[in-house]
């Protein structure tokens, strides 16, 4: 064989190797599934979904059971659609809305938790078996909690303008007026979220109502026992309007409020110069901040708890995600028990973005960035669960749609004309539903106490 032939053969071999390499690079497309994977459905996206997938991968490593997670920004309407259109339910669902759980329960769709899972919850959470399953049956596994009443701001911007963190709600109004005199809008705020559009506005109103009307009145409202036309609700909406929706209060005005996704709201806070000075959102908002954002008094961004009517520690609005299972299958039971157990969130805790009221996790075990939120939980402030998440779907939908249409129609609640009609129309939905439920056997649906108690458990 001459040198030329050898070189030609080498060329052919090289070309062949390159083709194989390219093939190999893309061969991920051809990997098949092995075994029957558990199908989990939930609202988590982005970093949350990635972190939860890491937890599931941990489970798969230990058990060999494959799990697929699918997340959707239109989660609750997707889940309802799966039920109504008979597309087939997932085996496990992550649900942030106790109201939705109550509905699924009423439709007899939820499968009870296995005994091992209940044991794991009792061992890891501050619940007794009696709390969780008075008649031996439990349906909801608490998993993650979050703190909602946080106002994010940039310490450097506050310092530059000599703005101080307020210690009362009235002080916040003064601060907003002061910021309004600068080139920076007081708030970053947007509400677009698919069929849940409006939840960010509802959170605001809930936080204000919890402070002004007090936890007892708030709880009545959350449980569906207080009319939407009540003065407490009305005043909270009016205060929200004045504080956040009034002209010049929010960067980008009504167009941005309605057009941008909730996840993108904080963008202008990080612009230079900043587009807004403050951003009220739960601790999970850190997932939506630009990569590498440092949180803390000396960091890029810091937070304060939305102040109360006086300088005492203000109450906290809480949210949470619980898990339910739709099927009684051994592999699913093992997954639920693992998630409730001591290692069931390790991979997420390590990545950050996970807090819970498990009493088997010490504060130092949490990611450093999450510790301030855990400390808040440990302060034992008055806490209430997110009301709109606790409403039954029909009430929730009517409530969120009404808030959204108000912002859409007027850019703000113009002189609050029409507010009474709006609240009356939402309340009619509530009254109709109560009438409907009273006509049905009472144990079918716990509109108030049952639903609400379930709600408290989600957050812990």
């Amino acid at each position, binding site marked *: 064989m001459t040198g030329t*032939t050898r070189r030609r053969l080498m060329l052919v071999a090289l070309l062949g190797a390159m083709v194989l390499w390219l093939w190999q690079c893309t061969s*991920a*497309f051809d*990997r098949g599934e092995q075994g029957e994977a558990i199908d989990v459905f939930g609202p988590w996206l982005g970093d949350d979904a990635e972190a939860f997938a890491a937890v599931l991968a941990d489970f798969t490593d230990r058990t060999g059971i494959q799990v697929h997670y*699918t997340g959707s*920004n239109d989660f609750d309407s997707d889940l309802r659609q799966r039920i109504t259109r008979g597309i087939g339910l997932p085996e496990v669902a992550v649900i942030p809305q106790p109201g939705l759980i109550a509905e699924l329960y009423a439709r007899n769709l939820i499968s009870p938790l296995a005994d091992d899972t209940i044991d794991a919850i009792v061992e890891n959470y501050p619940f007794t078996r009696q709390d969780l399953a008075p008649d031996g049956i439990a349906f909801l596994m608490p998993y993650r909690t979050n703190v909602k009443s946080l106002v994010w701001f940039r310490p450097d911007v506050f310092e530059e303008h000599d703005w101080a963190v307020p210690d009362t709600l009235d002080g916040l109004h003064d601060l907003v007026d002061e910021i309004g005199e600068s080139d920076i809008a007081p708030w970053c705020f947007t509400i677009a979220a*698919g069929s849940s559009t409006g939840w960010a506005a509802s959170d605001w109103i809930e936080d204000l109502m919890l402070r002004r009307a007090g936890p007892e009145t708030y709880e009545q409202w959350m449980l569906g026992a207080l009319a939407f036309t009540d003065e407490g609700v009305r005043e909270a909406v009016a205060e929200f309007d004045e504080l956040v929706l009034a002209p010049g209060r929010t960067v980008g005005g009504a167009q941005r409020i309605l057009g941008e996704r909730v996840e993108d709201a904080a963008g202008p806070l990080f612009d230079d110069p900043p587009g807004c000075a403050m951003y009220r959102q739960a601790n999970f908002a850190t997932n939506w901040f630009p990569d590498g954002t440092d949180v803390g008094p000396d960091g890029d961004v810091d937070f304060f708890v939305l102040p109360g009517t006086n300088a005492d520690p203000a109450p906290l609005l809480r949210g949470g995600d619980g898990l339910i299972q739709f099927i009684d299958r051994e592999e699913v039971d093992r997954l639920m028990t693992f998630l409730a157990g001591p290692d069931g969130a390790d991979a997420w805790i390590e990545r950050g973005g996970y807090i819970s009221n498990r009493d088997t996790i010490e504060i130092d075990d949490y990611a450093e960035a999450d510790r301030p939120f855990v400390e808040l939980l440990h302060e034992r402030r008055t806490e209430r669960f997110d009301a709109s998440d606790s409403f039954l779907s029909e009430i929730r939908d009517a409530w969120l749609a009404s808030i959204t249409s108000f912002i859409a129609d007027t850019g703000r609640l113009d002189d609050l004309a029409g507010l009474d009609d709006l609240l009356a129309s939402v309340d009619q939905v509530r009254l109709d539903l109560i009438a409907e439920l009273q006509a049905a056997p009472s144990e079918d649906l716990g509109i108030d106490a049952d639903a609400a108690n379930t709600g408290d458990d989600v957050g812990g």
Partner: protein
Amino acid sequence: MTDDHPTDEPLHESSDTPTPDEVAVTGVAVATEPGDDSGDASTRGGAMTAMGVVVAWVDSVLPSQPTDDARAAIDELIPTGDGQREYVARFCALIALSSSIAAFGLLADSGAVVIGAMLVAPLMTPIMGAAAAVVTADNRRLVRALLIIALGTFLAILVGWAVSLIAGGSVIDVRALPQEIRSRTFPGLLDLGVAITAGAAGGYIQPRRSAIAALPGVGIAVALVPPLATVGITFELGLTTESRNAFLLYLTNLAAIVFSAGIALLLSGFRPHADSRRGVLRKRLLVTLFAVLLVAIPLARHTRSVIRDLRLQSSVVKAVEVWDPDARIVEIEADVANGEADIELLIVSRGDPEPAWALAERIRERFGGPVSLSVLYQGDQHFVVEAR
């Protein structure tokens, strides 16, 4: 065919030593000896194989020497001696003007202005010079051409940056960049295809003065200055990722053009100037090989990623067909990064949308890894789903 390179002959005396022409064409091994075009494959190592016959045929078809005119056309690309200073000055002026036109055009989102900038751009000459120098293993020319390209690159980015400093205020929201800029921050296979064919066209046209009228078209197709202006603009706006992507687009275009223009020049008969001292020759060949490798690495990386993206894209299209037979994909963007698929779709269909999560799960089944999907349905309903 003239035989004005008699020194070609000794190179064929020893068949065990790689001859420059053989290495430079990475194995195509065309004959360079005049009169060797008779297809006498039987005298060669590949005589008994089908490949031997093909090689012999290629040998017989290809010109073995460029004409004097063609050689002159290539030599004139970058003047030497007295003309050099004037050339560099002219080059700098044209690149600054071209980049500034491109930057204003990009910021104004005007495709026509950007095309105008491409016609003014002088980068094609040093790039063709570099391709010719690679093919002919002329190190001195290669270094000169590369220095001029580097100067042009730096200057074009600087001008883009400066224009953005002055006029960048027109970009109100940096996350909503003009389409002309955005399209230059996502290099794709089509860009690569354009660069390869445009480079080949350049390599074909440059030595043929009769075809020189087609050269401006090559300049437009190659479009090197707009990505450079984009690098400058995005850098000034603080968008480092976009800036890096635009620079990657430029580099891969550059590599692809040098590579394909080099092939075209080779096919036109350009070969290394032979030298009697074998050591010097070997060194030149090493430099040539190094340059080819340098070109091939980003090209291969790029090709690998665009092939993956294309396969993902076809998975998405197939999944959509099953998901909703009435659906029509208006826009699709599909990238694979770190083993995860990131897909954006604009879809129109009839009636209520099918659930987006179901589409994500279908794509996950085909793709075999995590899928992040954003669906804009009928232009007003926005669904974001993930399947892991």
